[in-house]
């Protein structure tokens, strides 16, 4: 016997309603029910940060929430970050330009984490960027490119403001 509920959430501006098992994590809901597979799962227990999404604009690990807890909330995943079909978000562009990714596994979590961070702290120091991404593991880049991309994006976003 499984405990099921209906859940309605807005993801990247689109409203979805699904009936799910209450034990389903938000991460699995996003990937398997909504088929938005940009959100990655590295550890499924809150260590790697790959599954980070924005919940009402605040970063959160989607593997550490139940889908039913997102009822009525607004979620942004990596699919919802770009400015349009042909225009990346300045942070994404900066990742491209600064070798901020290699395999790309950690990238969705890095981007969502940094979007919140740069909104709260538009002119960060390198040290602050490193602390901001301390909850996101990257096995490829050695972080240099990611930190450079974040600082570059901060500058691009400040110029826009």
């Amino acid at each position, binding site marked *: 016997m499984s*405990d099921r509920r209906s859940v309605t959430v807005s993801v990247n501006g689109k409203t979805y309603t699904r009936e799910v098992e209450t034990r389903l*994590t938000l991460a699995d809901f996003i990937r398997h029910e909504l088929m938005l597979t940009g959100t990655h799962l590295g550890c499924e227990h809150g*260590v790697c940060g790959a599954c*980070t999404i924005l919940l009402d604009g605040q970063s959160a690990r989607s593997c*550490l929430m*139940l889908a039913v807890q997102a009822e009525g909330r607004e979620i942004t995943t990596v699919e919802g970050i770009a400015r349009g079909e042909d225009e990346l978000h300045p942070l994404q562009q900066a990742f491209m330009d600064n070798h901020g990714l290699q395999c790309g596994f950690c990238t969705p979590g890095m981007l969502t984490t940094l979007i919140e961070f740069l909104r709260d702290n538009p002119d960060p120091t390198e040290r602050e960027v490193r602390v901001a991404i*301390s*909850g996101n593991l990257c096995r490829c880049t050695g972080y240099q490119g990611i930190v450079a991309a974040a600082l570059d994006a901060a500058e691009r976003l400040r110029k826009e403001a």
Partner: protein
Amino acid sequence: MKPPPFTYHDPSTVAEALELLSGNDNARLLAGGQSLMPMLAMRFVLPDDVIDINNIAELSGIEVTGGGLRIGAMTRQRDIEFSDVVQQHCPLMREAILQVGHRQTRNRGTLGGSMAHLDPSAELPTVAMATDATIHVASAKGTRDIAMADYPAGYMTPAMELDEMVTGVSFPDWPAGHGYGFVEFARRHGDFAITSAACLMTLDASGAIDRISLTVSGVGPAPVRCRDAEAMLIGQHPSEDALKAAGETCRAIDAMADVHASSDYRQHLATVMSRRAMTAAAARAAGTTGATGATGKGE
């Protein structure tokens, strides 16, 4: 790595939550989920019922009471981090909270969750021990208050009954301008600390210590107040030698050993972290009394 089946409840009042807890010896309260969700994924816990308390508005909030702060159990760590009243009344807590996990986890993690989980090196229980906080708990039968000194019953085990829940914590104020220091040793920023130390201090007009609280965590199964060090320092000037000697007494704490660190190493860290916390507290206390040139501010 998926949570096991359970029945999910999401009450909107404390009374309903307590009703669900009462007589149910295999239920778990779901607060911020930053510890329970991994424990479910790893199947360290297999509850019949999960009682989600995120929709109970009355459990959140930071209130200035006569003698301190009363913070609701479901107050997010993020809200503590960005609270001006916390910075004013308990700057130690603000310094500590910056070391609690990461932004993504502080956005969800709660004060009450951290208190109930009672990890041996968790920062918020360390602050509670340092400030002689009071834990407010409730069950369907009524409410009671537990002094932080009596709250840890053992490793990750608060002195609460199965049908009780933490509803809030009161942190008594220290005098305005008191010195404080929170330091920890972790392998990476945001990891669980291997050892941490918290110190609060005031100096008299001559610059001698007239009140001190020193707590070390991650060494024993729960945070420990270092009464010997405190007693040694009352009436003393916080010289490098005096603080070092006091820190040395922390080596006597009964220490755990695990894959992260041996008991000897933890005892060594206890002496170093406590000295650093006391040094920071002394500099800040002195900054505000004008006894030395320290600024009373800093990272």
